[in-house]
């Protein structure tokens, strides 16, 4: 054991750990305990029901399953496009010229806006009759592409995913910019001397060097898209016909609309397990992609 070597480092943990324990660990553990009860979230009394909530959740809750599937669709779409766009734009805008600094700030702007306003703007863009998207398509003579973007059960979740990508690409771009700028220039010089092409430069210099940023971006995007509560709630409230219900919106309505706080806690436990598993898988895959060469 290395406790001795670590001793002074424990002091570093202390201030944060104390706050984290009081204001995060304690309430979270409390919430977990409620998952074994039938508490409604407000009454003084409740009963302990053991694992009944979990049994119900796994065996007899079609909405939970539906929300889970929707969440995976949403997450994959956002993960792929948000990571791709933020990486591409970070590489385009890496030099600190005036234009690039301005564009990075511009791209970041949506992140600043509150989700209520983003939801409002995008409901207008997607409105089937007077919305911007359909009118633009019609001007371009692409009427056949017109859609009922938020009203069609099959595409609504992807429409919101597009909004989510728009909302947060600029934020992720910053992480990539920070990662790219930390790459020593001489690595590229070496690569150039060896006559590396554009792709090999990326594959053998850029990618291994920004893998830490990519890990951060992807893990964060995954978690963020699992928690994309505000946007979905403001745009569709999970509808039409549950087609945009995700786990976070479901947990919210279980807890505060149906007043089944105990059951909502059980849903949350499963939610956390899902995120944890996905995050660990991502870590593994990314590490593999880096080590391969």
């Amino acid at each position, binding site marked *: 054991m290395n406790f001795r070597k670590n001793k002074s480092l424990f002091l570093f943990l202390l201030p944060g750990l104390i706050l984290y324990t009081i204001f995060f660990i304690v309430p979270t553990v409390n919430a977990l305990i409620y998952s074994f009860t039938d508490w*409604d979230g407000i009454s003084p009394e409740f009963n302990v029901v053991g694992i009944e909530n979990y049994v119900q959740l796994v065996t*007899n*809750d*079609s*909405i939970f399953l539906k929300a889970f599937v929707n969440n995976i669709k949403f997450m994959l779409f956002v993960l792929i496009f948000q990571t791709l766009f933020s990486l591409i734009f970070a590489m385009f805008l890496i030099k600190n010229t005036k234009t690039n600094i301005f564009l990075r700030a511009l791209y970041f702007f949506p992140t600043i806006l509150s989700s209520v306003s983003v939801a409002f703007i995008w409901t207008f863009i997607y409105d089937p009759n007077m919305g911007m998207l359909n009118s633009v398509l019609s001007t371009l003579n692409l009427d056949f592409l017109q859609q009922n973007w938020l009203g069609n059960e099959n595409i609504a979740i992807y429409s919101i995913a597009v909004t989510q990508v728009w909302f947060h690409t600029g934020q992720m771009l910053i992480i990539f910019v920070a990662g790219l700028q930390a790459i020593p220039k001489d690595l590229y010089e070496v690569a150039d001397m060896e006559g590396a092409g554009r792709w090999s430069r990326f594959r053998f210099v850029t990618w291994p060097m920004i893998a830490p940023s990519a890990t951060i971006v992807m893990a964060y995007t995954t978690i963020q898209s699992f928690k994309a509560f505000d946007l979905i709630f403001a745009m569709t409230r*999970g509808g039409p016909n549950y087609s945009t219900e995700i786990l976070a919106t479901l947990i919210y309505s279980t807890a505060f609309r149906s007043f089944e706080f105990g059951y909502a806690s059980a849903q949350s436990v499963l939610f956390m397990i899902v995120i944890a598993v996905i995050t660990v898988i991502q870590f593994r895959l990314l590490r593999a992609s880096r080590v391969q060469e």
Partner: protein
Amino acid sequence: MIRKLACVSTFALGALLAGCVGGTGGNSSSENGEEGTISFIHWRGEDKAVFDELISKFEEENPSINVDMTIYPSEQYQSTAQTTLRDGSTGDVFTSFPGSQLEIINKAGLFEDLSDEAFIDQYEPQLIESGQADGKQLAVPLQLVFNQPVYNKGIFEELGLEPATNWEDFLALCETLKEAGYTPIAFPGSDIGPGQFMNPMMMNNAPNEDVFDQLMAGEASLTDDWWVETLAQFKELNDKGYLNKDALGTNHSAAISQVASEEAAMLATGSHAMASIKEMNPEIELGLLAPITTTEEEAKWEGIHTTTFMLAVNANSEKKEAAKKFVAFLSETENAEQYANETSQHVTVKDVEYDSEELTSTSEWIDRNTRFQPRFLIPNADVEKAVISSIQSVLGGKSPEEAAKEAQQIVEQNL
């Protein structure tokens, strides 16, 4: 450079810590002198201006009491406000929705019993029943809303139309509107539309007011005629092109603007939307109607009403007397009248005179045979959502039978 940064950060830390401690001091010192401050929480952002006026008037009449008003959007109200009610520090006066929210707050024992308060007599007795439980008056609903379509009187007159008294006539009426180039019904299917329009659509298909209690007891099913028929009628309206195009992607604001611009003749939500339509088009003349989904003889109900925005006093409050004073103040005829006229809402208080055109023209509905909003009588929110989703599902193309079956499955998971 590193040293400089370290220097700066250490300095900033010190300053911030000092500031933080100072901040705490500031907080505790301001706790004094608010002996008479009561907290009033509600969800009506639209009513902020009139409440600001009423509160200053109240504070003038009662110099020892201050009212601190906090407004939450209705969704957040359900979650956060409820949480903060429990300790009695917030919401000395609070508001509640009828139905499941009233029930849960009652179960938690947070309602102060108002049965013996003198201000109860200010209200029309039959309009405050939604605030009663266990034989007590727990809260007094202030607003009276009609959850049935709003229609453009001008368009109806121009085409010589009258509100229909049976389903055949209603369809014919829609057809006439459609042929004249109007969208017969603007239906905001993406947000509140299904939850609002389901009420008049089902009221006569399931005239029994206990239908949702029976549903929860397993004695009725969504696959029974009353609901399948309702869904089929929704589908009929949509398939015949009587609802706006892509209704499922239309939100309330967009639907309102379709009615205000006189593109659409009816708005399938409720009387609460009249003020917004008027604001966008002051010239428009509006009335209320309800689709009768049966024959005239079978129709038991004429329309839908909801008494909501229920004023209540927190049982855990330390300032109950001041809180009751404030509720009594809002119940006074004069103040309720001001509230009604400035917000364009009907109220449940007696002898109120309405001065705006849309309120007077629709107040006949107060005396008509309307039914309390069935949706609020669904005791479980998951079931409510399943019911609403089945409407979206038929509009999305499913058959009524299938949509009803899927919804019933969710109901059974919640029994």
